[in-house]
């Protein structure tokens, strides 16, 4: 029995250890000096796609908003349809939405739609938006059987009721079972290896569905702050939703989401397959993310953004969340004041001045330096479409 087999066998009774590697709320004994070296193991000789991040339109982010897109916390199907149509045409310069989508997917593709159900039902990838993305992918000629909606944790997908709410024939896949560690949906040859806090299991493996099954990924992040990474957007939804054993990068109050999020997004074939990012900003969480259900900190903004460049998209998101926090009197996501820390998640959820970690919004710029996109606001082509 090798070390990893031993770890897995030994942890069967402890779901959090098995799944997360470490309880993220364990306290760090000392202040880590710097991020340890991270070894990346992608498929050797994988030929990168020109559609891969930052994709066809580096630095371009198209945003549309309509206050009527979400009313009394319900997302309007027809308005989301119109917004998606508008932003896709603006992003690509095409006159028809179908032609816009055809720049990213072909009839022969197996299309994975990476949702973010964490935080469901209060703030997650809206089923209404996912329905429209499915319809758009179908309009290009991709058969229904070749469209798969997926995320890491099946129980979170259940809470969002995606199974019942998405069209017949669409496969919905939860890669793993968060609570009992069941699920072997990971590729052993593709992984990131680093020892952050002395954990036993130092590898995070890529989901097989990404490594093998899908040929294109439409990434559908939500617009939220994140207690560890600052915000959770396109980059984090891809990275931490594709690789397992990622919560080990947090040990309160420290987190190594920077640099791991960006590094994970460079690993092939994830980088090549993630061709489009559709950010669901129907709801915007400005405190308590990613899991909060506290409506006081969730604004119904009716925003939709698209980009092929996840760094530019997350930079715009970070700016928006920062602005919102400033308006509401909450401290900056960049704050590193020890007095703002709390070990109590209940305190954190109900007090915007508190946080569990020193947040790492710098992961976005770090991803930019890795070539994944543009993080300089002055260089981002941010196009706004008003209703």
């Amino acid at each position: 029995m090798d070390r990893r087999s031993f770890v897995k066998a030994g942890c069967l009774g402890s779901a959090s250890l098995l799944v997360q590697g470490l309880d993220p709320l364990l306290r760090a004994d000392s202040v880590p000096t710097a991020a340890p070296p991270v070894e990346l193991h992608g498929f050797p000789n994988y030929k990168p796609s020109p559609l891969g991040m930052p994709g066809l339109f580096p630095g371009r982010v198209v945003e549309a908003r309509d206050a009527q897109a979400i009313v009394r916390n319900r997302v309007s199907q027809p308005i989301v349809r119109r917004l998606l149509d508008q932003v896709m045409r603006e992003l690509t310069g095409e006159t028809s939405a179908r032609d816009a989508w055809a720049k990213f997917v072909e009839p022969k593709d197996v299309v994975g739609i990476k949702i973010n159900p964490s935080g469901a039902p209060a703030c997650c990838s809206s089923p209404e938006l996912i329905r429209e993305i499915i319809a758009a992918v179908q309009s290009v000629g991709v058969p229904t059987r070749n469209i798969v909606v997926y995320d890491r944790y099946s129980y979170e997908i259940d809470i969002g009721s995606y199974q019942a709410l998405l069209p017949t024939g669409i496969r919905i896949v939860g890669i793993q079972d968060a609570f009992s560690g069941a699920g072997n949906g990971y590729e052993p040859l593709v992984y990131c290896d680093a020892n952050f806090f002395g954990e036993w299991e130092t590898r995070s493996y890529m989901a097989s569905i990404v490594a093998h099954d899908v040929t294109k990924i439409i990434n559908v992040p939500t617009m939220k702050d994140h207690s560890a990474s600052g915000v959770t957007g396109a980059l984090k939804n891809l990275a931490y939703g594709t690789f397992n054993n990622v919560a080990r990068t947090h040990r309160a109050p420290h987190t190594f989401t920077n640099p791991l999020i960006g590094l994970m997004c460079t690993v092939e074939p994830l980088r090549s397959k993630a061709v489009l990012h559709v950010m669901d900003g129907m709801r915007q969480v400005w405190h308590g993310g990613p899991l909060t259900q506290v409506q006081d900190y969730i604004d119904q903004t009716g925003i939709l953004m698209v980009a092929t460049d996840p760094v530019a998209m997350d930079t715009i998101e970070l700016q928006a969340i920062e602005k919102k926090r400033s308006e509401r009197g909450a401290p900056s996501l960049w704050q590193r004041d020890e007095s703002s820390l709390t070990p109590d998640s209940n305190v954190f959820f109900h007090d915007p001045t508190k946080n569990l970690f020193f947040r790492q919004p710098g992961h976005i710029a770090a991803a930019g330096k890795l070539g994944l996109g543009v993080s300089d606001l002055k260089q981002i082509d941010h196009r706004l479409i008003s209703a």
Partner: protein
Amino acid sequence: MTETATPNPPREWPTLLGDNARTGAQGKRQLHMPEKAAWQYRAGSAVRSAPVLAQGVLYVASASGVLHAIDAVTGASRWKFESPAEVHSTPSISVNLILFGCDDGKVYALEQSSGQKVWEAVSQAEVWASPVVRNGVVYFGSADAKVYAVDAGNGVAKWVQELGGKIYSTIYAGEGQLYVGCGDGKVYGLEAATGKILWSTLTGNGIDSSPAVADDLVLIGSEDFFVYALKANTGEVKWKFETGMGISSSPAVSGDLTVIGSKDGYLYALDTHTGNLRWKTIVGEIVTAPPVLGDGVVCIQAGGVFALDTRSGQIVWRAALAGAIQSAPVLTDDSLYMASLSGEIYALR
């Protein structure tokens, strides 16, 4: 596993929420706060369905695809059946058979005493709903958008009816009619003998909830945030009540009291005939499980297990066990059986 003998064999609980009328534990004595865990059983993977109980055996399906038959008194394993795919369906008992749906698109019928497969019925997509048995016929909905009626004895199809969306709602089988919610946002009334669609009523979003029937009303929740009461013979909306979030919980009905959870974290008690709110109590961040009504109490799993006074909505007791929000407990005269998302099954007394 700890074991404690109980003097009386537990009463029956052969299907989701107790019986075909989904009455829960009504008629049993008031449920007191459990004093101890009589036993604990580890299923090995998450449980996303509810246990059922028959002839002293508790049946629990784990998400990894194993159906566990557990001695309800001792907690010892009687047998296990490994199905080829995940299982999210609550089992049902039919005479000497135990039935459950599977993600491989099949409904399996096993011999209750041994776990040997007797028959299987095939659909084209996963079956998460619980099979329902009435008058020798098994009814179930599938994610292939079809409702199936098969012979309970041999699994041979009697009829198949296609609806407009995926079906995760468990059918309510009345004497001559079936009622079911559908992913297309409609509630359907079907003729039990033929599957013919008698009526359909559109709600504002897909339906994950399973209906209950009280008098001439079909009660069901929708992801459009509303609880609906529809006239059973026409589907006409008699009333609807708005909650704060989508509803995938299912109603429990006792006379003029209807209780249902919402993803806004509240448990709502409504007047069955008017939809007027009697009380609402927050029991967790999210409620997706169906509540179970006992005499004077309503139990709900929402991160832990809560028992509330049916008259006031006051929480009578809570147990920080069974951290599941999708399962429902089995209540008997002296025991409470629960399954958890982490795969633990508890008998509390």
